[in-house]
Each structure stands twice: as C-alpha cells, then as structure tokens.
C-alpha cells in the first residue's frame, strides 16, 4: 500500500479529534480527542519515517507517546480537582473568565 494513505488516515484522525474538541462539552471526552490528535501525529511520523527512509520519525513517535501520557495524567488531575470542588464538568459552564 502506498505510504500516502497512512498520511491521509492520520489527517482524518486529526480532523476527527479536532471536531471532537469543538463539539464535545465534557473535559474527559476532550482529553480523549486530544489524545486522538497526538496519535494522529504519531501515525504521520511513522509513515513519514518509512517514506523518508530513516528512523528519526519512529524515535520521535516514541517520545510523543511518553509526552502524551504525561499530558493525560495532568489533565485528569485537573479534572479531579474540579470535580472535588463540586463544579460542573462542562466546558461551557466554566466561563467565569471572559471579556
């Protein structure tokens, strides 16, 4: 299979993730969508690594996986803190800061 299809797939996943962020209101689902986007990047990196012929893309993808994991941990931590404060877990409700 031509390598370009993997890149197309990754952009589809990226777009789905972006759409998810734009349309979903729960922070947890938004975190999931962010993960989708990061993994789309991973897929693209691996595909390009194959296309270009060196291993740098794959190394990059491994590193991104680590970073994505860290980010999720933080995100969940903040969500738990919000939950503990009995605030609504809804990004549309949390808009005291505006203007």
């Amino acid at each position, binding site marked *: 299979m031509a390598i370009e299809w993997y890149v197309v797939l990754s952009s589809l996943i990226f777009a789905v993730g*972006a759409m998810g962020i*734009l*349309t979903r*209101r729960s922070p947890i689902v938004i975190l999931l969508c962010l993960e989708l986007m990061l993994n789309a990047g991973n897929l693209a990196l691996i595909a390009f690594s194959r296309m270009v012929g060196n291993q740098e893309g794959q190394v990059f993808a491994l590193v991104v996986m680590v970073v994505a994991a860290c980010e999720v941990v933080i995100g969940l931590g903040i969500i738990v803190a919000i939950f503990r404060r009995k605030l609504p877990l809804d990004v*549309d409700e949390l*808009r005291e800061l505006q*203007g």
Partner: protein
Amino acid sequence: MSCTSWAWLVLLFPLLGSIVIGLGFRALPAKTAGIIGTAAIGLAFACGVATLLCLLGEDPEARHHASSLWDYANAAGLDIKLGIFVDPLSVFMVLVVTGVSTLIHLYSFGYMQSDEGYRRFFSYLNFFVFSMLLLVLAGNFVLLIVGWAFVGFASYALISFWYRRGTATGAGMKAFVINVVGDIGLVLAAFLIFRELGSFDYETVFTKAPQVFSVNEWTITAICLLLLVGAFAKSAQLPLHTWLPDAMEGPTPVSALIHAATMVTAGVYLIARTHVLFDLAPTAADIAAFTGLATLLVAGTIALVMTDLKRAIAYSTMSQIGYMVVGVSIGAYSAGMFHLMTHAFFKALLFMVAGSIIAAMANRQNIDEMSGFGKAMRFTSAMLLIGGLALAAFPLTSGFFSKDEILAFAEARGGFYVIFTWLGYVGALLTAIYTFRLVFRILPGKACKEAQELIDTGHVVHAEPENPATGEVEDTDVGFPGSEHHIAEQSWPMKVAMGVLGFLALVGGLVQVPGVDDVIGKFLEPTFADSPLSHIHPTVGAEWEGLGIGGVISIVGIGIAYFLYVARPETPAMLIQRLRPAYTLFHNKWYFDELIDFLIVRPILGVGRFANRTFERLVVDGLVTGTAGTVRGAGGIVRLVQSGFVRSYALLLIAGFAGLALYFLIQSS
C-alpha cells in the same frame, strides 16, 4: 570652558532643580522650592549667556560644535550618541527659552503662593524647561524625539495640574494624544532619514541630504511632510490645533510658559533646524506656509468672538505662530525667529496680565463681566496696554518690526508669495481689532463690582471657589487652585517679571530696525547660510514701505476696535445680528471639534454598535451560542469574541490555521 561645556550646564541646572524639588517636596518649605526652581532656570540662563559670549568670540564660520556624553546605542548600523549641537540657532532658542522661563518662574513665585501643590508645580515647571532645552540643544534626531516626547509629557502634567477638575484632566489628555500623533510623524520621518542617509546625526544628515536627494523627490517630500505633522501638532496649527484652547485649563503661568514662549515654538524651531531638508522639498515647504497662513486667518477670526479671556489670547497665539510658520517656510528664517522672540515677550506678558485680572475677578474669566480695571489696577492695566500695542504691531513696538519683516520678505521673494503679504496684512488688521477689543472691554468704562471692590477696599473680592468653565463648586485643597488670589499690584515678584517683559516688548524690536541694525539676522546667518533663500533681502526702502503699511493697518485696527467697543457699543450686537452665520461659525471655532467628532469618533462608536447588533447575531450566534461583551468602539469586538467559551477559542485557532495554510498553498501555486 568650551562652548559646549556651558551648554551641558544649561541642561544640567533645570534637571537638578526638578529632581531636588521633586525628591524633597515633603521636606522643603514652599518658598524654598520656589527659590530653587527660579534659581535653577536663572543659572541656566546665565550659562546660556556664557555660551553666547563664547560663540561670539569665534569666527562666524566656525560657530557650530557638537559634543556628546556617551554612546546611547551603538549597534549594527545604529550609532546614536547622547549629543548636543551648539550653533547660533540653538543658542538663540536657549536664550529665549531660559530668559522668558526665568521671568515666568519669578511670576509663579508670587502667583501660585496659596496653591497646595506649589512645590509640585515648580518641579514640573523645571522638568518642562529641561525637556524644552533638550529638544533645542539636541544634536541628533533621536535626542530630538526624546526631548519632543518629554515636552509632551510635561505639558500633560502641567495642563492637568489641578487634577481634581474633570475639565483639566480631559484637556491634558487631549493635548497629549494630539502630541503623540505628532510624535509618530516625527519618529517615522527620523527613520526614513536614517534609511536614506544612514545617520541620525544633524551634521551628517544636513551635509549628505543635498547629495543624496534631488529636488522634490517623493522621499524627501514625504520626510518633510511627516516632520510637518510633528511640527503642527506641537505648534497647534490646523488641523492639529484643537488642544490649545482647551489647554488653558492649566494655571496661567503654565499658559504663559508653554503656550506663549516655548512648547508651541518647538514646531517653528523644527522647521528652521531642518531647513536644509525643506529646501530640497519646496512643495512641502509651500504646504507648510499655506497651512500657517490658513491658521493665521482662522484663529484670528475666532479670537474676534471669544469671550473667555485666556482662550482669546490662546487663539491669538495660534495666529501669531501661523506668522512664524509662514516665515520659516518661505525662507525668512531670521525674521521668523525674530518674531518668535518678540512674541515670547509680549504674549507671556499678556498671559501674566490675564492671570492678574482673573485673580482680581476671583478666578472668573469671562470678559463680558469685566470693565473699569483701568482705574482699579494701574500697573496691570499699563502692562495690558503695552502688550496689546506690541501684539497689534503698533509703530515702534517690538511686534511692529518683527511681523512686518516677515511680510516684507514674502513680497521680496515675489511670484505667488505676495499672497502671504496681502493676507498677512489682513491678519494684522484682525489682530489689531481683537486685541483692542480685549483692551477696550477690560480697561475703560464703569467699574464692574470686582474692580469697584478693589478701588474701595484695596482687597480682591472673595467668592466661592468654582470651575470657571462649568460652574461646578470646588474646594481649595490639593488638586484645585488655592484660596488666595494674587494680583500684580500686591506681589512684587509678579511686578518685576511683568515689568521686565513689558520693557522688552516695547524696545525689543530695536535690534532689527531696517537699515539701522541687523543683530539677529547677522547672528543667525551662519546657520542659514547654506539655504538658497537666504540671499533674498528686501531693500531697505521696501522694508520701510512695509513697515509703513503695517503701522497704518495697526492704527486703523485700533480705531475700528475703539469704534465698536467704546464709541458705539451697540454696534457689535447689531453686527452679530446682521452677520449671524459668520458669527456662529467663528463662535463655534469653525466647528473643528464637531468635525473631528463626526469624522473619527462617531465612526468608531458606530462600528462598535454595528458589531454589537449584527455581528453578534449573525456570526457568534450562528456558530456558538454566546453572549455579548461590552462595547467601546473596536474594543467591543475583541472582547466580544473573547467569549469565555473554550470551544470557540479552539474554533478560532483551527480557523486561523486553515486560513494560514490556504494562504501558503494558494500563494505558492
């Protein structure tokens, strides 16, 4: 000591004075602060004289020195030093500025005595003089910009000195904003000069400019036009003049200093200093001259119908600066500078007189309420008469010689420049009429109740403190004028200051009597020798002819004023009836403020209102439900889009990316 060392001292003393008073203002007794302030400027004047003597001791050709303290910014291509430039023009300006400022400080010493902010006043005043001297002595365009911005800032501080008055802070803001517009023009001009000529230094720029530019190339014209934006903002010429009348909210010594002798002359100085560039862009110079002419006439007409004493004098200032701008734009450099000097004398004097009279009127400024002061305040009245005669260019006063020298030059230059002479004479007629309108209103006639109080008791009448413009009641605490009002007759510092200026206003013109002596012309010659226009000299006969016409016009104007305001006092009312449209136009200051409101302020508010209604309904509601933010012009749109919804932020981010990507793809295909 070399000439430049004296010049550095000129800068040092006012700065020290400002810092000392500023730091110690809680500890210093009021009078000491006043003495320190006045002494600082006095010392600066003395050093200015020393610089002058030093210069005179040299060959006329060698009279230009540059000196710098340290490298301001020395980087790739940028070489700016903290340097000053000492030559006849800068020394001339230094002497006028420090001389008149010393007298104004002396006047303030007496006038502002009961004000709670006395010490702060002197600190600000010293800082202002320092900034003005920096502007005048600067040796490169960057230091000029620094001095320029400082002067603007100091004027903001001084105009809104009585900061608890809403009208004062508003006026200060307006002045500052218009000044900043001028600053932008100046900054852009400076950078264009740097780009074309590679340096900010005066000497380098003025030597290279004729080599690099040919006459009327669009670059040099653009540079000169930008310089004009800066000059007109500072000198209150059309259309950047609306701040000057409002600036009368400041205390009277501030009006005398800033709006008679110093800040408003900065624009004239700028054009004179950069005359090399203007010689290369005659179109810009002509635009400047015509703007000066227009200002001269428009301001003259407005002054005819102003009833606020200080504002009337303010419009007169605008008009006289118009003369100076005309002078330096058509090539009459030394004549323009001469008029600058004499104007400083008699205008500062007139403002001081106004201060005295307003004090007698318990801080009220409407001339319709004033009369009969001729008997009540003899000294002030005499000074008013002297100042008025000089302003109206009565024969043999200083104003007589200076104004007509400009007009004679215009005629000698020939071609269409004679328009300046004719219309200049029309302006002179207007000047005489409006000046003596003031004199004949205030001096003769039955004493008004304030004047009567003075004659009877020798004391100034007491009244509730209130804002003269709006009638709001005030108190006399910090931020408002003080409780006691000082008139010249009762305060010797005020008397001395006014007396000296009165003397100078009378005899100051004798240094430039045509055919007899040419002190200023000869002194300034080295600076302007490189201009092709400096070779134009009206003949002595033509000059005396001009002087003759000017004298006649002055006397006729005074006569008309006499007729209108003394002999047949009902005439003005009848004229107003007959010429109502003209009267309304002048009275509303040619509707300039309204024009600006219509052209600039309304559209901005309109955009905001449009955004609030249409944009919100169509765009924001259509994409993400949201609520509106507040509206204040364009800021409303921004804050509108900042809705607080994180998803809409995300949307804008993605939309921005899409736009950027599309731009790149389309552009490269």
